[in-house]
């Protein structure tokens, strides 16, 4: 018990307070800073990729020419960095850590030291990955999916330590989020304030916790797989080598058994953020709170039985394709419920198009495209043609970009006042949204068309194929838009750092929102709440008929004059 008491006292020294901190709010900001830093690498690699595709083998401004082996390394780094070191640290690490304790009315995470260890393990993973880009032999170049035997034997790529360090970095990242996931789950189960029943939990908490469980249940086999791959490379085993009795398809199964649930690990928190923002700026309750939770859980469960849709043409038994097709396409039902309920949440609202709301709505609008194009890939028949083409690239960017960046920016603009005690600039925010939304669509709609022409992904230059000559101008359009998308992030960077220092001081509840994080100071004190909150209400009681104002915080005691609150729960 002494230990627990110690970890709750505000530490005095700079290092214990801001570096090796156990405070979930400090750790969340560390995750945020790490993910934004890694996003610079992820963004820069996308610039190199796009430039090469539009104007092959020219000098890339700020870099120089890239060859085919470098190109393969750059796409590998782009995917790895964006999925594992930007999306997850941002959506789970930063928002999950910051908001779960504040939203459920706890003074910290259940295991503050484990939380600190999770972050520093991720930091180590990021350092290892960064080092891997500079070792002799070059960085890993087998794609972010690292299919064996290309990733398994250096003779096929010439990459030696780059691939080993890549495996190590990814395995450390998994370990980090395993620890984080245990913390999320335990905190949500055990640390809720009095009155914070499961049916009063904000949806973001539901989504973060479901994501943590999905991650915990799916990543184990791939941690084993990563070690097996490392042993194949360093100790002469042959788990994934056919000539030694192993099977390359085993890696694909292990990878995608994790890889598909991983999409939901990222998507659910992104949705959760949009779902917190929408009721506040539509001044309406969430439409169908319970069906949304059931849909979330259903999508989470279904995500475990769809992985082979990444492998329809992999050489696995073709009789498996139709069952996996059916489960995959079935996922459209819970996602349709989520999307329809989100639209119904803003329907007949009093919508304020603030920057967070613009990003939340933009995320929903673009995610719909990602959702409907998934049907083409979920059907094994059409996937024969579309698998491994730019159609897939466009599709998954239309799912992951909306949740990671539209969702992430919605969350940053929304909770920035809570995190840093100051408001962000709305004008710069709207300019940022406009550039992001327009340019993003101009990058990836054209790439759907390239995919429909059969343009394979991971191709260093399209001009090596005659049938792709008509596609070349599509790549030019996409590249110009991608450069616009990157430049469009500058207003955000300026806004973020300027507002942190000079922004207008934020009040405790600038958006008149109901959930518990808005009942405490901006930024919250060390133990989050001056008096620990008691919860009396559902999280989204906006525009309740007969109530004196259009919002009723979760911790406001019930009074008989609001008839609707008697029905709460």
């Amino acid at each position, binding site marked *: 018990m002494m230990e627990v008491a110690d970890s709750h006292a505000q530490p005095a020294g700079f290092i214990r307070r801001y570096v090796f901190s156990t405070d979930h709010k400090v750790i969340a900001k560390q995750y945020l800073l790490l993910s934004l830093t890694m996003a610079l690498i992820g963004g820069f690699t996308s610039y190199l990729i796009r430039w090469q595709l539009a104007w092959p083998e020219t000098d890339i401004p700020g870099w120089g020419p890239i060859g085919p082996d470098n190109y393969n390394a750059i796409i590998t780094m782009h995917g790895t960095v964006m999925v594992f070191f930007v999306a997850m640290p941002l959506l789970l690490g930063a928002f999950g850590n910051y908001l779960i304790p504040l939203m459920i009315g706890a003074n910290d995470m259940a295991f503050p030291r484990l939380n600190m260890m999770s972050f520093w393990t991720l930091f180590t993973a990021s350092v290892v990955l960064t080092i891997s880009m500079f070792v002799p032999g070059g960085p890993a170049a087998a794609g972010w999916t690292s*299919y064996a035997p290309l990733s398994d034997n250096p003779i096929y790529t010439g990459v030696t330590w780059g691939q080993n360090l890549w495996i190590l970095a990814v395995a450390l990242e998994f370990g980090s989020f395993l620890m984080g996931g245990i913390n999320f789950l335990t905190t949500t189960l055990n640390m809720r304030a009095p009155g914070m029943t499961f049916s009063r939990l904000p949806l973001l908490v539901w989504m973060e916790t479901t994501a943590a469980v999905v991650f915990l249940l799916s990543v184990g086999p791939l941690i084993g797989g990563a070690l097996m791959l490392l042993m194949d490379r360093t100790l002469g085993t042959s788990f994934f080598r056919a000539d030694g009795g192993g099977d390359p398809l085993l890696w694909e199964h292990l990878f995608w058994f994790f890889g598909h649930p991983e999409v939901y690990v990222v998507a659910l928190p992104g949705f959760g953020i949009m779902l917190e923002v929408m009721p506040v700026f539509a001044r309406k309750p969430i*439409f169908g709170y319970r069906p949304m939770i059931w849909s979330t859980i259903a999508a989470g469960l279904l995500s475990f039985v769809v992985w082979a849709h990444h492998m329809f043409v992999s050489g696995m038994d073709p009789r498996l394709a139709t069952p996996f097709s059916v489960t995959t396409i*079935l996922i459209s039902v819970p996602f349709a419920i989520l999307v329809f309920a989100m639209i119904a949440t803003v*329907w*007949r*609202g009093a919508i304020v198009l603030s920057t967070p709301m613009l990003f939340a709505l933009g995320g929903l609008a673009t995610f719909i495209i990602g959702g409907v*194009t998934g049907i083409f890939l979920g059907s094994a028949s059409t996937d*024969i043609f579309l698998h491994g083409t730019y159609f897939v690239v466009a599709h998954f960017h239309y799912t992951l970009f909306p949740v990671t960046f539209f969702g992430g920016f919605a969350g940053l603009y929304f909770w920035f006042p809570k995190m840093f005690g100051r408001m962000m600039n709305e004008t710069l925010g709207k300019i940022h949204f406009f550039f992001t939304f327009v340019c993003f669509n101009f990058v990836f709609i054209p790439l759907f068309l390239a995919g429909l022409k059969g343009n394979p992904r991971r191709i260093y230059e399209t001009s090596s194929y005659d049938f792709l000559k008509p596609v070349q101008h599509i790549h030019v359009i996409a590249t110009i838009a991608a450069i616009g998308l990157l430049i469009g992030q500058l207003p955000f960077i300026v806004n973020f750092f300027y507002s942190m220092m000079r922004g207008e001081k934020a009040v405790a509840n600038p958006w008149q929102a109901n959930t518990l994080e808005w009942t405490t100071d901006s930024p919250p004190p060390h133990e989050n709440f001056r008096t620990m909150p008691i919860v009396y209400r559902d999280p989204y009681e906006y525009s309740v008929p007969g109530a004196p104002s259009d919002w009723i915080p979760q911790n406001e005691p019930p009074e008989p004059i609001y008839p609707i609150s008697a029905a709460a729960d």
Partner: protein
Amino acid sequence: MLNNLLPSNVSTFGADIDHVFWLIFWIVGIWFVAAEGVLLYAIIRHRKRAGAQASYLPGNTARQLAWVLIPALVVLCLDLGIDRAGASAWEREKGTPPAGDVLVRITAKQFNWNFTYPGPDGKFGTADDVTSENDLHVPVGKVVRIELQSEDVIHSFFVPEMRLKQDVVPGRTIRGWFEATKTGTYEIACSELCGFGHYSMHGNVIVQTPAEYAGWQRETWPTRTAANDAVKGTGTR
């Protein structure tokens, strides 16, 4: 404009694949327009105005939820229709292949496609095997059965105009088939990242009239002799 969306199709089963593609295209196209339309309408129509309050619609009654659940039920029914159409198109291309007129073994290696014909005796591994690098000659209107093998890493045999794609995995022999409906030269692309030369690992399917194909056979295939039928070396594969 829409009929230019996909490359023209030149295989028998490709027509089935395209049929499923257009089925999905129209179903999801209508949903896409409807969902974005309602969302856009709500954003424009239900902007905050002075004095107006938002409607309190928590969606906790069956009557309200029907607005979401009935469309979701329609989605489910359409899903099952897509599943059914997709399953039969898949079965035709990837199920048990029909009896073949021509047999070819396709060997992929960094960064080439090798096509081996069994020669006049119809058996692989004998002296009369014929190997062609990067050019696959086949007759139009005949079932071509293929056996795919890899010498190193995973490759993927992709002929866009035939809607044909199959990964080639070391340690396995993967069987498939196709039947071309139109003569011409169609490009083969590798569509699984296989190393630094991946982008240039291309070949051609040369679909010829039966007469042209026979002519190519006369020029390049050896005549059948006992010596040619003998099994080559120790390499019986």
